[in-house]
């Protein structure tokens, strides 16, 4: 067994705008989105499309027409019949899991260049038939004579036609039967996050995204998507540049009425979007004459109780900091996925809580305060949305871009994952 490990670089990446789910399915399926983001990214590379060793795509809500969306996307992007491709699913971590898998494969020397992405079209989440309706349909289908069929059909009940919204089921933890928004309510309570702080955080997210859009910081990252009806989607359309505390304060809690603190305004938005990054070894970088955005130097996954899944970033990013002896001042930029404002603020509070850090994380004192100026500098899922399988990919890509733009040396991208997981990735500037 060899102990030699290859250096791994994040070469380039691009994503579609994140498109707010409005009425009915949006114009793109997950693979459509992956194609829209992938085409311009591949077109601006100096190497041939068939130069990849592997395609990995994170996608949670795979639609029936696109089983193994990674492979469908690889073929539609013209990567060739010989391109191995697989799809990963670790819920909200899928888009980062694809990068991490690419990172580990390349680090260990079996691969040189991998296209790793995430794609999600939440607006296409299906209406699901009730279990009782499915059983009835099965009985009708299995009937062996017209009489038997007639009898089976008699079992039809009106409630069979009341579909279950698949997305709602998907955003509910099956073990605890808590909706994701409820897990944020739990954290807000435990860490004393009030409604005003959550709203203030959300407002800032919108303002930061609006500024990033206006000042061109997303130009190389967000590629316009073109629908068949001629509509062009060229920016994250959930942004509200004029978001203010008054209008946010008016919103009613959506998950725990009437006393809860989590509203549609301080939660991430339901959106469609896809993102890709090119992960390459030093050898591939040299061979193709590439200029990487950043080097991937570490990653970590962690798990905890599903009802407080929102602390996933704390559990997964801390071991990285501990391995390298980093304090808050050593990390120039953070991308911490904004599932809920209360959840982000709870993570910050946990790291700043001496008892929590001692008992749970094994520190002697509090890890310390993460400066808001280093955290989600260009907005996040609250302003631009959270297409679950894509978000992990986006935060790593955006961290790399933001580090380059700001001349930062080191950054961590991290996310909470429905079901009680967390993922984190360490990027460093290329020397």
């Amino acid at each position, binding site marked *: 067994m060899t102990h030699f490990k290859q250096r791994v670089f994040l070469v380039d990446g691009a994503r579609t705008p994140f498109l707010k789910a409005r009425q009915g399915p949006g114009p793109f399926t997950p693979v459509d989105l992956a*194609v829209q983001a992938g*085409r*311009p990214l591949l*077109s*601006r590379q*100096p190497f041939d499309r068939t130069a990849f060793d592997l395609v990995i795509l994170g996608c949670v809500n795979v639609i029936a027409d696109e089983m193994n969306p990674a492979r469908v996307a690889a073929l*539609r*992007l*013209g990567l*060739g*019949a*010989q391109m191995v491709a697989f799809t990963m699913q670790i819920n909200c971590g899928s888009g980062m899991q694809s990068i991490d898998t690419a990172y580990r494969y390349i680090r260990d020397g079996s691969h040189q260049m991998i296209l790793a992405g995430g794609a999600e079209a939440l607006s296409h989440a299906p209406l699901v038939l009730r279990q009782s309706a499915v059983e009835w349909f099965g009985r009708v289908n299995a009937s062996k004579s017209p009489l038997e069929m007639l009898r089976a059909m008699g079992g039809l009940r009106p409630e069979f036609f009341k579909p279950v919204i698949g997305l709602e089921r998907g955003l509910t933890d099956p073990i605890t039967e808590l909706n994701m928004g409820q897990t944020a309510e739990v954290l807000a309570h435990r860490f004393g996050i009030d409604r005003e702080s959550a709203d203030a955080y959300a407002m800032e997210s919108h303002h930061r995204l609006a500024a990033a859009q206006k000042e061109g910081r997303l130009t190389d990252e967000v590629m*316009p998507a*073109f*629908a*068949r*009806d*001629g*509509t*062009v989607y*060229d920016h994250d359309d959930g942004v509200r540049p004029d978001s203010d505390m008054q209008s946010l304060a008016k919103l009613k809690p959506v998950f725990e009425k009437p006393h809860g603190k989590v509203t549609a305004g301080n939660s991430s938005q339901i959106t469609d979007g896809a993102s890709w990054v090119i992960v390459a070894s030093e050898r591939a970088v040299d061979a193709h004459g590439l200029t990487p955005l950043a080097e991937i130097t570490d990653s970590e996954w962690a798990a905890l109780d599903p009802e407080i899944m929102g602390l996933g970033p704390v559990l997964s990013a801390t071991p990285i900091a501990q391995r390298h002896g980093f304090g808050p001042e050593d990390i120039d930029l953070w991308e911490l996925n904004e599932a809920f404002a209360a959840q982000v603020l709870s993570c910050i509070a946990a790291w700043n809580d001496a008892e929590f850090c001692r008992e749970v994380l094994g520190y002697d004192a509090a890890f310390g305060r993460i400066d808001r100026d280093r955290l989600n500098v260009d907005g996040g899922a609250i302003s631009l949305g959270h297409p679950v399988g894509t978000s992990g990919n986006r935060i790593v890509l955006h961290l790399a871009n933001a580090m380059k733009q700001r001349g930062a040396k080191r950054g961590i991208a991290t996310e909470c994952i429905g079901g009680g997981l967390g993922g984190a990735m360490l990027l460093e500037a290329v020397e």
Partner: protein
Amino acid sequence: MTGHVLKHLGETKLELGPLAGREGNWRVGRDATGVLWLALDKVDSSINTITGDVLRELETHMAAAEANLPRAVVLRSAKSGGFAAGADITSFDRMSDEGAAELLAQGHAVLDRLEKLACPTVCVVHGAALGAGFELALACDARIAVPGASFGFPEVKLGLHPGLGGTFRLPALIDPTEAMTMMLTGKTAHTDRALSLGIVGEVVEERHVAAAVHALIENGIERHEPGLKARALGFEQARTMMARQMRSRTEEKAPAEHYPAPHALIELWEEHGNDHDTMQRGEITSFANLLKTPSSKNLRRVFSLRQKLKDTARGEDGVEHVHVIGAGAMGADIAAVAAIKGKTVTLSDLAMDTLGRAVKQAERICHDKHLSPAETRDVLDRLMPDPRGYGIARADLVIEAASEQVEVKEKIYADLGGRMKPDAILAINTSSLALDRLAKAAPNPSQFAGLHFFNPVARIDLVEVIRSRGTNSDTLTRLAAFCGAIGKLPVMLSDYPGFVVNRILTPYMLEAMMLMDEGVPKEVIDSAALRFGMPMGPVALADQVGLDVGLKVAESLHERLEAPMPAISNDLREKVAAGNLGRKTGRGFYDWSEGTPQVQTDGRAAPDLTDRLILPMLNAAVEVLRQDVAVDADAIDAAMIFATGWAPFRGGPLHYTRTRGTKAVTERLRELAEAHGPRFAPDDGWHGFS
């Protein structure tokens, strides 16, 4: 993109029964069950045509089969490309007057013998079965299609109708009105349609051909019974009524005066539609008569002109990726057509909504071309709107279709310099600018040329390929091949104001506007042109091209040509200034808001009017020939026919000139010059033109 494993496995092999040895143009063999397989495999040719030899050899095999009756006969093609493309068209010219009828009768006898063979006969069709190929299939008891098979009688496009039994065998097999429609329009029935019409009994994949054939023989072939409608049309009165409808509809598209063939077919069917034998004799006589008509001769000439342009387009284009600059009407359509033909395409434009409209337009073209949902998806995947111009660095060919201003183009070319691949070609799609000045701005003048497409790109076959002074021959060869690869016909030209098509067409449109200024209604003008045989009158054509484009071309010709041109009408300038640009804005000279305006062609216009429109085109064609803009007169005729639909039954402007007589034309031009001005004065080229 085919992977290496499938590439190794190769194409699906055709089921040819027992290993069949070649005997002349046929491969023949009997399998263990006593079934005789006859596969047409024409010697020294990649496609099958039905020649005299092919039929004579088939007769020998029929005789052998009669003497030693097989269990069944399976007839198919051994060529992977398809069944059979019909008769060899060049042989029509060789058929002498009486000889034609005699040769046809011999062919009929062979097919009759096949039809009457005492054992079941099954025809398996893959690819196209056209004309005589289709007729061979019709003489069998049953037909099996492999997906992709198509059937059609394109004879009408050559001024003919089917001549080997198609006129009575197809109406006997399927709904007679559907059969007549196929023969009158020349439209092809693809696999699904052929199945629903009843041309084929079943459709099976190639891998199941042997099983399907044996099952059919085992279970017996059901004899076809005519339907109620077919029986009704056995009565003369019913046929007369139906024929009247067919005539009036045919007259609209193909007036009898110009296109006698479809009308001859209707008459034949009306008279003999209920009698196999008299219909057969009538078909032979009528076909032999049509062969002699000028209309058919000229239409066959058009066919050979097309072949000539196609020959220019052979070879490798070395173009996998095309980048198109400018997503306006032309750029968007060029991009869509190239993507449909499998090219990787990037399309750049400064305006995002223009790029969006280009995607919508591409989808519409896919729809119009009946592409399947999966094919449409692949086309749209291959066509990437590219606002940042990433494709420029990857393209083998950059087509610049930006706005028609020298300064704009020079600026674009300056930017291309450092970005294009060293061996990539830069082609400009322009209708009014001189190439030589732009060539100086191009990154590499030897790899720079003109590529002039016509609107609407998806429907017009011709592309003018224009060399500028420095263009090297490799670039021209590759551009011609590129045209072929995207299903277009290239005509190779040197730079000249308006090239060929616009040089010839502009005086026609400007003269029409002068006539309007003189008070002649536009409908009268357009109907005169339609009666001559133009597919569109000059006023409607100006609207269709776009009055802004037309004005620009007219101004450029006025400036750059020595020959006098009709003055540009104020009306045209005013319409352009007001933004009424023709079809694309819904209003020009005509109102297009309700679709294409209908112009009545009844009544006669003064012959002076027609000559004032048509003769300037002949004069300009002679000028273009004198200036060596095209290789020869045929190229000029081909360009006009395939770009503008110039009265094909007249064989093109220069061929028409020869038919009408050089002397008569020049005399008439002189008369017109005296009456209307020097713009009609005969060109110097008439001295050398014969």
